[in-house]
């Protein structure tokens, strides 16, 4: 394997490259680590700018403020509900659509495919969508969050690509047994497509978990807010008044603000980070599935 340029030059390149990769790892991981150690440090120490590498005077006071805040915890439950209902609707609608389009026998298949793909490249925009949701009476309801995005056309096309690969012979065998199209979808195509279904569950669920913009424009009632909107109001809009501990302790409270904000970030991110090691290989698989051209 040895050739001319192997030797010192190669060693130096490998060394620098290895170091560079290490720096990338630090850049990728340190910000989250930093948020973590701030959130469990004493707020006085944080305000003095002492916390950089490890937590100082570990304290969970900030988490106490977050976790005892009724509205914050309520938003957590809201997000779970929106994610659950939303993902279920996504899966049902996407598999129905993907199945129909995956069958060559579907009358006007090309026409339907075309008008659906067109929506990926042109849309009415934010305001007509808002007026529509308003006219449908969905403002301030869960439906404004789960129905407008019931199908992600991109995800649906990925599913269709997968469904097309179910051998025609299996379809014919099922038809001889008298199976209807719907029955074939449920007992034949879906079980054979579990990898893509798992990936879709992940993609859709993460999208719901992370979404905040629709909630901001469509919801008016604080008690219906999802988690991400609460985090935005706490960290970015700096509305932390409701996390304060009481009248007469304003100075102490404003010192605590940063740790409370970072604790909020951790609470919103931890569920995903805990699932991350288990789920990341499915995500990576999902990217590869998506890259197969439909």
């Amino acid at each position, binding site marked *: *394997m040895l*050739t001319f340029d192997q030797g010192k030059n*190669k060693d130096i*390149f*490998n060394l620098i490259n*290895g170091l*560079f*990769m290490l720096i*990338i*790892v630090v850049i*990728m991981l340190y*910000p*989250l680590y*930093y948020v973590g150690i701030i959130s469990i440090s004493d707020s006085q120490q944080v305000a003095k700018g002492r916390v950089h590498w490890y937590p100082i005077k570990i304290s969970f006071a900030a988490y106490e403020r977050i976790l005892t805040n009724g509205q914050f915890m309520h938003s957590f439950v809201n997000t779970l509900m929106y994610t659950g209902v939303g993902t279920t609707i996504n899966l049902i*609608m996407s598999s*129905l*659509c993907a199945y*129909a389009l995956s069958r060559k*026998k*579907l009358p006007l298949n090309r026409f*339907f495919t075309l*008008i*659906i*793909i067109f*929506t990926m*490249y*042109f*849309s*009415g*925009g*934010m*305001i*007509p*969508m*808002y*007026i*529509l949701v*308003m006219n449908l009476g969905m403002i301030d309801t869960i439906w404004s969050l789960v*129905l407008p995005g*019931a*199908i992600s056309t991109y995800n649906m096309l990925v599913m269709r690509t997968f469904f097309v690969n179910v051998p025609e012979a299996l379809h014919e065998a099922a038809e001889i047994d008298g199976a209807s*199209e*719907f029955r074939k979808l449920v007992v034949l195509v879906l079980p054979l497509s579990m990898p893509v279904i798992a990936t879709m569950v992940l993609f859709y669920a*993460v999208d719901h978990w992370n979404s*905040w*913009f629709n909630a901001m*424009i469509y919801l008016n009632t604080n008690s219906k807010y999802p988690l*991400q*909107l609460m*985090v*935005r109001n706490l*960290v*970015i809009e700096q509305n932390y008044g409701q996390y304060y501990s009481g009248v007469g302790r304003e100075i102490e409270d404003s010192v605590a603000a*940063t740790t409370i904000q970072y604790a909020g970030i951790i609470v*919103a*991110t931890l569920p*995903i980070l805990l699932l*991350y090691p288990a789920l*990341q290989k499915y995500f990576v698989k999902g*990217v590869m599935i998506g890259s197969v051209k439909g």
Partner: protein
Amino acid sequence: MADRMAWRSTGTATTKFLKKIEKNWQLLVILFLPLCYYIIFHYAPMYGVLIAFKKFSARKGILASDWIGLKYFKKFLTDPYFYKLVRNTLMLNLLTLIFGFPAPILFALLLNEIKSNAFKRFVQTASYLPHFISTVVLCGMVVKFCEVKGLINDIFELLGGKRIGFLQDPKYFRTIFVLQHIWKSLGWNAIIYIAALTGIAPELYESAEIEGANRFQKIYYITLPGISPTIIMMLILRIGNLMNLGHEVVMLLYNSMLYETADIISTYVYRRGLVSGEYSYATAVGLVNSIVSLILVTAANAVSRRFSETSLW
């Protein structure tokens, strides 16, 4: 068999088509709900775009509102602010493209040179962790880190610099935007290139080594051609989204001090439309944006179809 022969001999295109429907009506039933979804939530808003040409009144509804022609388009296109919005939208997107697009390719190439598989896997796993952080949390971190007493200023001070309010001065916004984008997407966008790299036949490298090719010659003559279809495909996809990138991110990061560089068409649509309630005007502005991006994606596709095998449709 006999009746099939019968309709074939008498069948016109229409009767054939009716036969097809009769035989496959179940598929149409399955498509019914999804089709309703596309009609209601995609095509109805396209019809709603009509209000850009009308003086929309919520009381009268879309149809009954009075026609006003191209007034709102004229108003927007002659507004001096129009130039600033288009400039900001294009600048943010182009800078993200210029710096954000090659970064994962470069990262994949360098990672590919790492010999130890365990280390490679570790670096890769760490690199796509930021992708799993939500937009809100990511922007929250950026906002906190950019504060005068924040992490980035701590580092600047350590290096002998002065503390700066990064999100109070328009001149830093573009840099911040591009850097957060690269941080979030570097590892994730590299996945597809890393996979393409593993698909290159090792024999090619071996014979190049026998020929005496050095590391950079191998990258130039074998690796890059090997992953160029993937690169082109990703580039078209990216250009197709040129006008749509990151309005949520901008909306989370910007404030009224930063409008000079941070205000883009979609954030402007949001403020004029949903905050000030000028539905018709904001719809007209949004429509201009949609049309430009439709032209971009069509052009990108045509160009790529001409110069390579790859295209979106």
